[in-house]
């Protein structure tokens, strides 16, 4: 029989005992829905987490530090390679070399320093860090009030919420609810801050520092190994107040005030590294304490890391962490999948039951069909088609049902999150592959369920089937 005829006859037969077949199909739908619900929860959670991590710039970033930085990171591999004294200085040429490695999208120096900011004539001491323009996509700026930096060299500044509270003198007591960012940002946006900083200035070796806290070491002992440190001021306009902390992973050195990177570089701000590299730092060329290298694709982190190690620097990435995270999700997936499949297994027994019942009921009809020329194969295919049709219908209804359940749970959770004054999340995701997979899976499970009934119907002896009324 042709597929079109099979489908038509199968659907007709399903309509004939519509209640029973609907119930069986509902059973499959529930099974598929539970599978979809489970797997979409898994997918959604994974997506949410990996988006977070991707936005945090951790998965696609290699942190590079000089081996000369004796603080190190306490990792084994640092014992290999050149000794600290012989290794390269992490300077501008090194940064440019990293930027030109394959698959690297950018390499930017970490500029961070503690200094004083004056706001309405009151001094505030804080940690300042420079951000490249690409940091705009960091999810810490999702809930930001105001705007991101207008350009890489604009005299603008973004404050972290807790620093904004400090400026306004509104730091809430521990445990009390935080004031909203919008409320904090209103009086601050567009206002000016004055940043005081120490500028490092290359100077003729014989010339003494101009003024301020001079840091010339070994004066005159090494030719050219001298520079001046000049106290400067820079006016900055507050353009944004961010809700979240973009540097949560930084621990105690995290900053609360952010400058555009280009501006920070042009200021030649004195950094702790300068003191450590004092014997070489006679030129205007900056030396960096660390450089962040962003890789185009997290999959290439390892290769880039290896290339940078070959250049003679220490590297750190959380690639290992992401690998084990993927492992965890694979296990979670399998677990959710098995759990979700249980209901489908029960539903498939329902299919077997329904079809065996149908054989008993339609015994005579099968006999007639055989008598007028249906082959065993025709009868078998007809029952397969009925099982398959129930599977596909159940699959489609199940996907919709699963999606709806997910939406409801997501909605409910977000109401709860809101009541806890947490931002809403979209942790429920039904990707296209899951839709296709679920329907195909339901179809296949139904066909397997149809194996026995179809074989039994095909074997039916027409003479027996037609003998009795």
């Amino acid at each position, binding site marked *: 029989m042709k597929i079109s005829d099979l489908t038509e006859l199968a659907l007709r037969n399903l309509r004939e005992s519509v209640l029973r077949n609907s119930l069986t199909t509902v059973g499959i739908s529930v099974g598929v829905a539970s599978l979809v619900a489970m797997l979409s929860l898994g997918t959604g959670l994974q997506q949410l987490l990996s988006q977070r991590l991707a936005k945090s710039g951790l998965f696609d970033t290699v942190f590079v530090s000089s081996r000369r930085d004796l603080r190190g990171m306490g990792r084994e591999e640092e014992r290999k390679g050149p000794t600290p004294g012989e290794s390269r200085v992490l300077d501008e040429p090194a940064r440019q070399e990293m930027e030109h490695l394959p698959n690297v999208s950018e390499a930017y120096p970490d500029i961070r320093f503690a200094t004083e900011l004056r706001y309405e004539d009151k001094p505030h001491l804080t940690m300042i860090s420079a951000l490249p323009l690409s940091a705009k996509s960091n999810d810490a700026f999702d809930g930001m009030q105001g705007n991101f930096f207008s350009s890489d060299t604009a005299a603008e500044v973004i404050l972290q919420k807790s620093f904004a509270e400090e400026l306004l003198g509104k730091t809430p007591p521990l445990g009390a609810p935080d004031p909203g960012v919008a409320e904090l940002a209103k009086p601050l946006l567009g206002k000016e801050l004055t940043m005081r900083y120490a500028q490092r200035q290359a100077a003729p070796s014989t010339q003494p520092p101009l003024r301020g806290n001079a840091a010339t070491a070994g004066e005159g002992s090494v030719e050219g190994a001298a520079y001046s440190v000049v106290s400067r001021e820079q006016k900055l306009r507050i353009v944004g107040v961010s809700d979240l902390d973009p540097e949560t992973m930084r621990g105690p050195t995290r900053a609360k005030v952010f400058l555009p990177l280009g501006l920070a570089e042009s200021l030649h701000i004195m950094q702790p590294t300068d003191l450590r590299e004092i014997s070489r730092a006679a030129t205007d060329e900056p030396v960096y304490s660390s450089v962040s290298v962003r890789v185009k694709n997290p999959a290439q982190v390892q290769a880039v890391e290896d290339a940078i190690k070959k250049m003679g620097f220490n590297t750190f990435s959380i690639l290992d962490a992401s690998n084990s995270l993927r492992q965890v999700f694979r296990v979670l997936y399998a677990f959710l999948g098995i759990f979700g499949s249980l209901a489908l297994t029960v539903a498939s027994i329902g299919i077997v039951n329904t079809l065996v019942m149908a054989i008993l009921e339609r015994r005579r009809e099968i006999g*007639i069909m055989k008598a007028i020329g249906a082959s*065993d194969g*025709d009868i078998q295919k007809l029952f397969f088609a009925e099982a398959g049709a129930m599977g596909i219908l159940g699959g489609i209804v199940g996907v919709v049902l699963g999606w709806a359940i997910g939406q409801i749970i997501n909605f409910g959770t977000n109401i709860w999150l809101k009541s806890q004054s947490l931002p809403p999340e979209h942790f429920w995701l039904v990707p296209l592959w899951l839709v296709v997979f679920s329907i195909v899976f339901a179809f296949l499970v139904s066909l397997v369920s149809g194996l026995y009934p179809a074989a039994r119907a095909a074997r039916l002896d027409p003479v027996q089937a037609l003998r009795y009324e």
Partner: protein
Amino acid sequence: MGETVIRAVDGVSVEIRAGEFVALLGSSGSGKSSVLNLIAGLDRPTSGSVVVQDRDLAKLSREELAKYRLHVVGMVFQSFNLIASMTLAENVELPLRFAEVDRSQRSNLARQALERVGLRARMNHRPSELSGGEQQRAALARALINRPQLLLADEPTGNLDSHTGTEIMDMVREFNRELGMTVVMVTHERALAERYAQRMIFLADGKLIDDRMNHNPTNDHGANAAAALDRREQGGRS
């Protein structure tokens, strides 16, 4: 058409020529229906052979038997055996579905067949909405649809009153004469057999008792016995 010979274990062999109208007579349990099922390819002999058109049905695969039933045989039953959930048109075109005939051609053929049995107006009704006679006519239309050479009827008038029965039998004779179909009819009504069949075969307890020509049917059949259809059975359960 080839030759078919039925030969029972006790040495009885029956040969039916193409275009013949044969009645199989006997009381219930005589084995007449079993013989019909063997000819129809619905059943297989435990030993022996049923040869139709040079094909030994006992040696055909299940698949080939289904093809044989589809293209060579048309069947009508005492209880009509229409599928209750289908309209007459759908019932009539069902064999065409198994034969994988195109949809458009199918409905045309079904309409023609129903027209032939006078049920064109009822083609979209379900069997339960029709009288017994109408149902049997629809069953005849279904038996005709694949243009089989062999029409097998199992007590076709058993569930009908005598008037409607006559109507059906007239139609069967018409197919026999006009379409040249070989008819084998099982019945226990001797009067009916004498009136329509050219030949009567009597069975009892699975054995052939008598095989005689009926020289006096109401209408002699035409001269379409050019080719012969023979039937042979050996050691059958009939």
